[in-house]
């Protein structure tokens, strides 16, 4: 079914009501890619099929794409302003949404809270606000470099006890690993592609086996 009728008018996949995308809020789902909430039935379209969502975003206006990029980072934070996140808290900072999707999957069953940020500035602010037990950050990020985030968090007494893992696609090899750990005070350093098994081991070593014991269970 063609779910976009004209400029950002779409039919809600749950109740079939025609919505104006510009008037709808983002949902509060904890996945990597929040979607819009239907004005009629209050359902988002996170659970719509991949083909439906791809069709939607392919036909969405540039304005909606811009709004999606600019507003989505703050979605989880907005919710948590009035809620205390369940501990332990893991903050993932990466502008690559495939990483968010993979980490979310790796942490399925995790008994804590996963926060998402898509640029360094938002990530650093969220880390300062929520003092996560673990920050997983890309090395090269928009606005503030991930290694600088590691240094800032480790030099602030409020966040110094949290663990920081830096992930990267380009700085490979022992030399860069040593540099990240020595100069930026990162607790660990992993290379892309992100392998689920390696990530599970690192997360367990950083925040304890018990917190992640259900994550990946059965895999």
């Amino acid at each position: 079914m063609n779910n976009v009728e004209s400029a950002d008018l779409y039919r809600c996949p749950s109740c079939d009501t025609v919505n104006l995308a510009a008037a709808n809020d983002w949902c509060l789902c904890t996945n990597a890619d929040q979607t819009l909430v239907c004005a009629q039935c209050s359902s988002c379209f996170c659970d719509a099929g991949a083909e439906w969502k791809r069709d939607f975003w392919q036909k969405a206006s540039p304005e909606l794409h811009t709004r999606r990029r600019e507003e989505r980072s703050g979605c989880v934070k907005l919710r948590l302003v009035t809620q205390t996140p369940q501990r332990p808290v893991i903050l993932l900072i990466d502008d690559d949404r495939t990483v968010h999707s993979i980490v979310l999957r790796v942490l399925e069953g995790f008994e804590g809270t996963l926060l998402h940020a898509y640029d360094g500035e938002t990530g650093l602010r969220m880390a300062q606000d929520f003092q996560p037990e673990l920050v997983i950050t890309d090395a090269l990020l928009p606005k503030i470099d991930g290694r600088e985030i590691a240094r800032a968090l480790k030099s602030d007494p409020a966040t110094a006890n949290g663990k920081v893992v830096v992930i990267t696609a380009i700085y490979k090899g022992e030399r860069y690993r040593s540099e990240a750990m020595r100069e930026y005070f990162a607790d660990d350093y992993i290379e892309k592609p992100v392998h689920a098994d390696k990530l599970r081991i690192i997360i367990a070593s950083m925040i304890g086996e018990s917190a992640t014991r259900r994550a990946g269970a059965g895999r």
Partner: protein
Amino acid sequence: MRVFDTAIDPDLLTGLRDLAAGDRAFLDDLYAIYLDQADDIIAILRHALADGDRAHFSAAAHRLASASLNVGALFVAGVCHSIEAAMSDRSARPSASQVEAVEKELDRVVSAVATLAVA
């Protein structure tokens, strides 16, 4: 040295399938997210090409290389890494052929993803 000619690295795909644990929607969503991002980045590459903006061109290529590694699109990553390397020369200028090379490899990924959907 591992040699393969498929658009998606079979070993990495196996790892992602293990992670999916039979949940087809996970893989569908992951590749939809990747291709959606790739569309955005191609637009940025074209914009930087039009402006002759070496820094933005290189940064966009890096973003796509990084995302490509995670979904096993190693040929896309390879082309993007070569763009990054070329743009490290201050006298280099972005070229249309570089963007076309990325698009060509992305087309192969799109075809491979369509095959995954029926596999």
